[in-house]
């Protein structure tokens, strides 16, 4: 990771960006963001190394946020703004450790198709219901189960977590993976066959 050396940036104590950076909960969420991204690339490294890299990214994010604090719109929440800066810091860090180029961008049309197919307003039609069933039939069982719990039984993430005996955040990630798998089907299915 390339850490830019900068002079300390002075900010008044009541500056919203500075106050946010002093918030331990927000700092922890920034470290989590860095760990989630860097952890995939540093999987073989000791946990302490990964934690150090994540803290470095967090510090760099803090420095850049203070430098850019005049760009921050105080009418908007500060957390996503800081995570956006962290995103750029991590992009630079990953570029320096990545061996292969980034994969192609997601097919936005496939995501739109999936949204249309899963939309409950349209699920009243027999065709739409059949379409959701066709997704389920083509997916591996671990994805089918979580999609059925969410879209057929209408369970919340907490309820899915309890049903599967996993944590709430793990239920969230499993549902995301199932939707990504469904999106792949939406992207390859010929549109003329769709309702």
């Amino acid at each position, binding site marked *: 990771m390339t850490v830019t050396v900068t002079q300390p940036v002075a900010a008044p104590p009541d500056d919203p960006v500075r106050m946010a950076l002093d918030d331990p909960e927000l700092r922890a*969420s920034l470290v*989590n*963001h860095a*760990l*989630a*991204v860097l*952890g*995939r690339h540093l*999987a073989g490294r000791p*946990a302490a190394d990964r934690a150090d890299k994540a803290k470095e990214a967090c510090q760099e994010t803090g420095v850049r946020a203070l430098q850019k604090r005049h760009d921050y719109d105080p009418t*908007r*929440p500060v*957390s*996503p*703004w800081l*995570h*956006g800066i962290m*995103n*750029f810091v*991590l*992009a630079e860090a*990953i570029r320096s450790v*990545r061996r292969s180029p*980034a*994969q*192609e*961008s*997601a097919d936005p049309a496939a*995501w739109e198709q*999936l*949204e249309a197919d*899963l*939309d*409950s*307003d349209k699920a009243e039609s027999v065709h739409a219901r059949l379409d959701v069933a066709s997704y389920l039939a083509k997916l591996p069982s671990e994805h089918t189960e979580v999609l059925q719990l*969410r879209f057929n039984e*209408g369970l*919340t*993430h*907490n*309820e899915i*977590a*309890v049903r599967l*005996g996993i*944590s*709430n*955040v*793990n239920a*969230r*990630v499993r*549902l*995301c*993976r199932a*939707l*990504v798998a469904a*999106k792949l089907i939406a992207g390859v299915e010929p549109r003329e066959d769709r309702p």
Partner: protein
Amino acid sequence: MNTNNRRLQIDLAAARYLDALERDDFTAMSDIWQSALSDPELDMVLREIHAGLIEEQSQEALATSSAALTAAVENHLPSAEIVQSKLGPVTVADVAEELFRHTPDRLPAEAHVLNERLRATQEPLPDELGLSGLTAWAETRFGVAPAEYWRAFRQAAVKLELRRAAEAEYHLAARRAPQPEEKP
């Protein structure tokens, strides 16, 4: 927008974010964080994705360390027993495996033959583990065996049931507490 549509939108935005993260597509991630500027719920969900990924990475690291440790113990301490923590009901195979590893003295040869067969039987044990009931249940399914075999089988079954119950209690105590407010 109705509640279901809102839930679907959030679910799909979260899925797109995970997809982008796993493809190192920082431009798409940046766009989603931009959307989160006007959507506090999305902000919270994206942070949950990070927490979920960290949990997965920790479990993978733990599994890797555990496999390395198991291999080292099996290579260098062949007489040691590695007790694997399992969830779910105790099966006939679990009990037969326990008897294979800790075989009681003076079991007749036909008991060993039956035990070898039962090591592949994944049927769960009955709820009642009284000796007469268990013997009747087992002989109906697996055939007749010497009484001392079923006594040893019952002792091993009770030991494994107690161990499994203790593990289940541990997992229950160590589970993550649910969030006070449910999110879509």
